[in-house]
């Protein structure tokens, strides 16, 4: 589903990703672990299409298409979803209004008809319940005054509503206490499906206790320096990243 080959990305003049290669098949959950500054967030933003990240070499194929050539909204309509580390607050737009606009934009781009307000509400409410997202949150301005946990829950709610094919979770565990973390992880696990791939980006092993990946990649200084099964997370937790920082593979 996702084929990243020899990806080089710079922000301004500064190279961040320096030859990253990674491929994920449908149904798989991969994790990227790495210390601060290793390029984890850069990778997530490049995949979602944020401006300011220049691909200087390499390629990203998504279902055989050149992902980098697509506008962010086109990627979303084709099933790419990024649960952001820092969801933005947008005063003046209610969460419900935003969800409806986003859902119908994606549907329109795929040539599907709009869902009317009643059906959007039904869909959102059904998904919101399991993620403990209250009616009140849906009525409030998007992310404004939400706690860290509420923001992350809303990201996962969006994932449940948009039903992406490729979901990228960028530091979804940051700022969450253990109860909030479990709730979010349960939400994510419920969305695991044979047709869906996930890329979980995290600094800590903790999240991977709850979202158990099929494969782990260790990202250090813009390159994948180690790969393995879920047991790699425990090793990293015990020994830290130092080994990889000092002896790049």
């Amino acid at each position, binding site marked *: 589903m996702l084929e990243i080959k020899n990806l080089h990305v710079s922000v301004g003049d500064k190279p961040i990703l320096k030859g990253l290669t990674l491929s994920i098949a449908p149904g798989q959950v991969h994790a990227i672990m790495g210390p601060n500054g290793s390029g984890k967030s850069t990778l997530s933003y490049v995949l979602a*299409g*944020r401006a300011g990240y220049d691909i200087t070499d390499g390629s990203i194929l998504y279902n055989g298409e050149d992902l980098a050539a697509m506008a*962010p*909204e086109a990627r979303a309509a084709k099933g790419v979803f990024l649960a952001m580390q820092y*969801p933005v607050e*947008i*005063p003046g737009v209610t969460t419900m209004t*935003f969800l409806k606009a986003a859902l119908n*934009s994606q549907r329109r*781009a795929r040539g599907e008809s709009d869902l009317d307000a009643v059906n959007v509400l039904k869909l959102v409410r059904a998904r919101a319940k399991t993620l403990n997202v209250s009616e009140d949150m849906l009525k409030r301005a998007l992310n404004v005054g939400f706690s860290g946990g509420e923001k992350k829950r809303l990201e996962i709610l969006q994932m449940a509503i948009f039903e992406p094919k490729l979901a990228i979770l960028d530091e979804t565990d940051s700022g969450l206490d253990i109860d909030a973390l479990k709730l979010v992880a349960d939400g994510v696990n419920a969305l695991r499906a044979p047709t869906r791939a996930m890329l979980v980006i995290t600094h800590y092993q903790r999240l991977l206790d709850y979202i158990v990946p099929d494969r782990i990649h260790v990202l250090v200084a813009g390159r994948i320096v180690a790969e393995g099964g879920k047991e790699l997370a425990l090793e990293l937790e015990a020994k830290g990243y130092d080994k990889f920082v000092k002896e790049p593979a």
Partner: protein
Amino acid sequence: MTALELRRAEARTIFESRGLPTRRVEEWKYSDLKSALGEAGLGEDTAYVRLLGRLPEGVEYCDLVNPKPWAAAHFGTLARNAVSEASLAFAEGGLALRVPAGKAIGEPLLLETGGAGHARVLLVLESGASLTLFETTDTAGTRNTGFEIVLEAGAHLAHVRLAQPVETVQVEEIALSLAARARYDGHFASFGGKLARAELIIALEGEGAEAHLSGVSVLGGTAHADVTTHVIHRKGNTRSTQLFKHVAGGKAHAVYQGKVTVAKGADGADSRQTAKALLLSETAEADLKPELEIFADDVKCAHGAAVGDLDPDSLFYLRARGIPESHARAILMYAFLEDALEPVANEDLRGAVRTGVQAALRSLL
């Protein structure tokens, strides 16, 4: 000559001696009326003021050719600047409206100014009366409207002015006098013109009087919209708030000039002013100038102004959720304006302003 005719003659003399304001006149610093009008100037024609729909029960009216005593008593007493003197001098007739003491009018009164030339309106709310006024403008003609509003003790006026986008020069001066505990809620939506302007001169003459102003402008092309306010706190415990937001694209020019004067003795006055502008292009321009003049003690006054662009992180967030760029921009522009629309209490009128704002935003994309 009647007193009215004398006042009109005096207005003519004043206008002729002062002439059209230039940009050297402080209140016209950012709007060049003289050059926008060109050779033709303001002219001496009469524009019209009319009611849309029916007159709500309980509201009285008369024309200003043969005004009733209650109208004659106030006509021409509030306005004093050159442009409003011109409307006083040249508008033949005009409309006067009164809500008698203690009457609360539920149904909004709908007023339209139209045509080319000068127009005059006088509105009197007697003590304890209340009214919602919706004022709209037609798109034709160069027009100069002079509006006087008298709010007696405890009266409450909710005023929504929705100015249609025009190609011409349309200016309006609204002069208000508020007695003790009277309250004015004014909302001003504008989509600009060659030069579109609403100037408010609000005198809080009585203890505890309040004026709450809000407004939005959405401007594209070469549109120019100007809101100029002067709120004078003459008595103690008076309050005023102002929240104006502008979105300007193309080569449009948004102006907010707001002056608050707290006179000697107006202790306990409270005033807040906020003006913000969102500029969508390098060539769009905004001049925001809040200003305070304080001669009293123990007052609370705050003001702020900010000019910015759409937040790129917010834009990316919406696009990453599948919302196309132009739609995402419209959502963010609307979100920027939203809190300045909220003060419009009447839902139908807020809906009318929203509709206008959304149409204008679409045309900016």
